[in-house]
Structure formats: structure tokens, C-alpha cells
């Protein structure tokens, strides 16, 4: 159903969350978050006719190009996915960008493959972790750190700022593994510093699990 139509690989350094809000014809959130070895760009959009598909596609290209021109984003992979949909008209959009970033950790090339436009096109680009996941993580953190129920926790709350030491963090990881039935790699566990990062990693791991 979904074909990856653009992939790109590069070295990873650091993590960045870049918010590109773009209103083309509909509201969609284009959010890039890197870290944990992957970047996902998310949006969901329904279009009713093919001309607006073109607009959306160009908008996305523009967004992507402007993103790449911004400094300091390093990711390991960026993928766009689009469904292969039966259609009478076919348009091919190909954009190739080489070395758009001056920094060493830049994208080598990005190419958009074939789009098949149709009356209904859904471009699925995933956003950051669902609010329910963030909430579940917050609950586990509150319990582990014995925080009062009304402690204000945001997705950006850092474990260390909440008073977690390394043993707390380890117990939190274990609690998350149990709750979501996942297995967290050592290196991934070390890189979790905020609730958002934990939630993002969890969703990534849950998604990668083989279907039961």
C-alpha cells in the first residue's frame, strides 16, 4: 500500500526537532524529529483533485528544500511514503538535490520518485509520538520518581531535572519495556533524556515489531 518514494542516508549527530508548519491548502503539520537513528516527517492530508496534489507536492518540496538549507539538522534517514494508487493520470515529479547543506553532515541527494495522483491522495508523514503514549510515559515516570499526581510534566521534561538518577532511569526503561512489550537497546536507553524522546522511541519500536 505504501511505497517509499524517497530515502536519504547520512551520518547522525545530535538530535533536533524542527517544526515546519505549512498551510498549503489544508492544515498539515510537517514535523521532523531526529534522534534514535531515524527521522520521520509526518503529515496527513486529503486532497480532492489532482491539481491540488501538485500544489501539495510542490509545497512539500519547498518545505523540504528550505529545511535542508537550514543548518544543523543531521539525520540518518528521511523517508517519504506515498501509496501506490490506481489512477488514470500519472505525473512524475523528480527533484534531485545534491549537497544542499554546507556542513559535512549534509544530505547527499534526495529524489522524489513517482507520484500517482488521484482523486484522493493521502500523503502520510508521521508526526511525533501520540499524546496517549506521552501520557503513559509520564505516568510511569511519575510513579518511578514518586512525584505527586499534580506535578506538571511536559513532553520536554528532562528526567534529570525531575530528580532521576541513573538507577531511576534504568527502572523507567524497564517499566516502559514491560508496559509496551518492547526491548530497548543499551545505546537507545542511554539517549533517552526526556519524556518525548522516550515516547518517540517506544512508538518506533512498537511499529517495528513483527505483527503478532
Amino acid at each position, binding site marked *: 500500500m505504501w511505497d517509499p518514494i524517497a530515502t536519504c542516508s547520512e551520518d547522525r549527530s545530535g538530535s533536533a526537532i524542527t517544526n515546519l508548519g505549512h498551510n498549503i491548502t489544508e492544515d498539515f503539520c510537517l514535523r521532523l524529529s531526529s534522534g534514535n537513528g531515524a527521522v520521520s516527517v509526518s503529515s496527513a492530508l486529503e486532497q480532492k483533485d489532482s491539481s491540488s496534489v501538485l500544489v501539495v507536492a510542490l509545497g512539500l518540496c519547498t518545505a523540504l528544500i528550505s529545511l535542508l538549507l537550514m543548518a544543523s539538522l543531521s539525520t540518518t534517514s528521511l523517508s517519504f511514503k506515498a501509496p501506490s494508487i490506481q489512477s488514470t493520470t500519472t505525473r512524475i515529479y523528480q527533484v534531485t538535490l545534491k549537497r544542499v547543506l554546507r556542513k559535512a553532515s549534509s544530505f547527499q541527494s534526495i529524489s522524489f520518485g513517482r507520484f500517482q495522483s488521484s482523486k484522493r491522495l493521502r500523503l502520510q508523514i508521521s508526526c511525533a509520538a501520540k499524546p496517549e503514549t506521552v501520557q503513559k510515559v509520564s505516568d510511569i515516570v511519575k510513579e518511578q520518581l514518586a512525584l505527586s499526581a499534580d506535578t506538571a510534566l511536559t513532553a520536554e521534561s528532562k528526567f534529570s531535572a525531575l*530528580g532521576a538518577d*541513573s538507577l531511576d532511569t*534504568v527502572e523507567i526503561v*524497564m517499566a516502559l519495556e514491560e508496559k509496551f512489550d518492547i526491548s530497548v537497546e*543499551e545505546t537507545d536507553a*542511554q539517549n533517552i533524556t526526556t519524556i518525548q524522546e522516550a515516547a518517540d522511541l517506544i512508538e518506533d519500536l512498537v511499529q517495528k515489531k513483527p505483527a503478532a
Partner: protein
Amino acid sequence: MMLSSLVPLQLPSRMQTHLWYMLPNEVKSDDALKKKNALLARTLVRTTVARYQTNNNNDTVVDPRSLKFKKNLYGKPEVDGEVDTTTNYPKLKFNISHTDSLIACGVTVNVPVGIDVEDKTRKMRHDVLSLAKRFYSSREVEFLSSIADMEARRKEFIKLWTLKEAYVKALGKGFSASPFNTFSIIRPVAAESYNLCGQAEGWKFRLLELAASSHYAAICIEGEDDEEEAMTVIVHRTIPFVEDELISDWKLL
């Protein structure tokens, strides 16, 4: 702040660690407990390092505020000795650790040091053996499994935690460089101290009970591969700018 009240300190000798600890309850503060302890830990480091440097500086008082610190490649804080090359500052190494009720700083000359302190009564939310199976080495799991009494097992888990943490902090390369399940710290029967298995030779460990036996404190320093000399530890309780107390009733485990 009265700089003149910062009494200079004799440097640690070779294979010697100086352990300084503070009880935050002895220091008044309006701030939330956890933030306060992080701040106090930095105060402890600065004042202590300044006092060692003062001694080396012909007793010209070194202002703790003037000290420069940097982080190594992996984020471990260290004294930035490159700043002033005219004076002959010793290569002081330090490491800090704190709980809600105790803040500690270990200092050595030249050798990398790592310390970890933990409340002796700390309870884990998970079963100790499950935690060990997930995070410790198989040898350590075996050791913990062999302890029948739950309370004794919990204590041994904590002791191992502090020792393993002290090693990783002494190494200074972050936890991913030495995941806990890739090495074992064991105490052979009738041995004087804990030993490291599964990694490079030479690392020395000391495990102490501190502050009315309320805390475990583990110290790890990097010795030479064939280093015969044992690590000695000198312990002080301190309130910066106020008082020092040489502690003799700490217990070596």
C-alpha cells in the same frame, strides 16, 4: 564569602583518594531539595579544588569562582588546567555523586576517578533479580541469586550498582562505552577488595559505608596494570567555608 576561611589542603598522594562529603541538611536553603543538591555539589567541587590549588600556589588563595571546568568528549566534567600555564597546578581529577541526603566529591592526583553514593535503604520498584538479569552480567546474577535473604540481596544489588557506576564514571566514556552487562565486579573469597572482570586490568575499587552507615560509597581509580599498591582513602565531612571534620568511623566493606 570569606576566601580566607578556605583552608588550603594537602594533595592526595599516589594511589590515594580523598573523599569529601556534605550533608545538605546542614546547609540552609529555600530551594527545592533536588535542585539544591545539584548546586551544592558544584559548590563542593569548586571550593575543594580551589583549596588543593591554593596549597600548591604558595598559599595564595585561589578563588573558587575563578576555576575553569570543561567536559571531556563524553561529557564528563574535569578541571580545565590549560587556562593558566604559568602556575604549576597539579593535575587534579575529581568526580561527584549525590543522593537526596548526601553529596560527595572524590579527588585524586593524575589518576581518573569515579565515585557513586547511594542511600543504603533505597528500595527498587522492580524485583532485584529481574533488574539484575536485565542489566547486570551473568556472573553477578549468579551471585545475587545465591543470596536467599531478600534484604541482603537488595543490599548487595545496591553495592554492586555503586561499584559498577563508579567504574563507568571513572572510565569517563559514558554508559554506552561500557554497558553494565559487559563486565563483572566481584569479591573473591578472602580477597581484600573488589575486582573487575571482563575489562582492562589495573582498576582499583573501594566500597565504604558513610555517614552513620546511611550510605554506600564506591570509589574507583585507574591504576597501572601491575599495580600492587592498594588504594587508600581519606574521608572528610565538610561544610564549605565553615568546617572540616576528618572522619575515622567510616567502614570499609
